[in-house]
């Protein structure tokens, strides 16, 4: 019971520094700080040599070039060993012809999984669920996604979130529902009545003072 409590307490939250780690991976020992200055997607999968995870790894490998264009690295994780990860990625390359270009953490001790709240006992007491942590260049957690064991992740949504976060940071705007690059963005709501009145004269596309959009 104590163990379950601790797992819940350690769920990281948006806007907080990502928990530091040093972990064995398929690319050697890596620390979180090795990724500083760039974006990082840390994601967990339940287990190597399982069907949904295999489709996800292929999909992550497929979007990796697009992520690199955006300055984003990928880092996978499960509680399997480095040897198991190596055997699995070699199998995926041999059977499916897809090379997995990013490192995978072998979290046998579950240190990283617990620090990031990746084990949800209601789903599995031993495996990590499908988590996605988007960590910015200052190593602040900017997005957290959790998927159940039975549902593979949507790569379009992950790319869309990266585009939205990077657009938001670069332009001090927000993005509306279903936003895609090139769509209009939302101007942050005004804080004062004066700003609200000025806003209506600024040539934005406004439904009313609190909902204004502009093109970038």
């Amino acid at each position, binding site marked *: 019971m104590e163990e379950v409590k601790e797992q819940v307490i350690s769920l990281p939250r948006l806007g907080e520094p990502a928990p530091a780690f040093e972990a064995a991976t398929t*690319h*050697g020992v890596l620390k979180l700080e090795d990724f500083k200055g760039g974006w990082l997607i840390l994601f967990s999968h339940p287990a190597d040599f399982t069907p949904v995870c295999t489709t996800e790894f292929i999909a992550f490998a497929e979007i990796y070039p697009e992520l690199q264009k955006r300055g984003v690295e990928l880092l996978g994780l499960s509680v399997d060993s480095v040897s198991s990860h190596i055997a699995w990625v070699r199998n995926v390359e041999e059977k499916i012809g897809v090379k997995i270009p990013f490192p995978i953490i072998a979290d046998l001790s579950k240190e990283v999984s617990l620090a990031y709240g990746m084990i949800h006992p209601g789903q599995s007491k031993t495996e990590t669920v499908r988590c996605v942590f988007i960590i910015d260049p200052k190593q602040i957690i900017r997005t957290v996604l959790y998927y159940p064991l039975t549902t593979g992740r949507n790569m379009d949504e992950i790319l869309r979130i990266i585009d939205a976060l990077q657009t938001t940071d670069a332009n001090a705007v927000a993005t509306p529902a279903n936003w895609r690059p090139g769509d209009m963005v939302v101007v942050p709501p005004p804080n004062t009545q004066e700003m609200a009145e000025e806003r209506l004269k600024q040539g934005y596309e406004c439904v009313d003072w609190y909902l204004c959009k502009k093109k970038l």
Partner: protein
Amino acid sequence: MACVSPDGTPTESGVQMLRALRSGLGPPEEIAKDTGLPLFRVRSGLRELSQAGLANQKNDEYEITEKGVALTK
């Protein structure tokens, strides 16, 4: 270890990094640019090369050691 084999010799990426250091002190960002390796790989690789005595860290930069030079000839 990704950059140093169990027998203490540098792997292909380790040799790449050591060769990039042969021209003098270099920060990881510069080594990443020279080698084309991702920055995270260079940071962890230089750490391993230092632990193996093939490179030395001086503040935020690295230099190759005599042992490192000998192994990249």
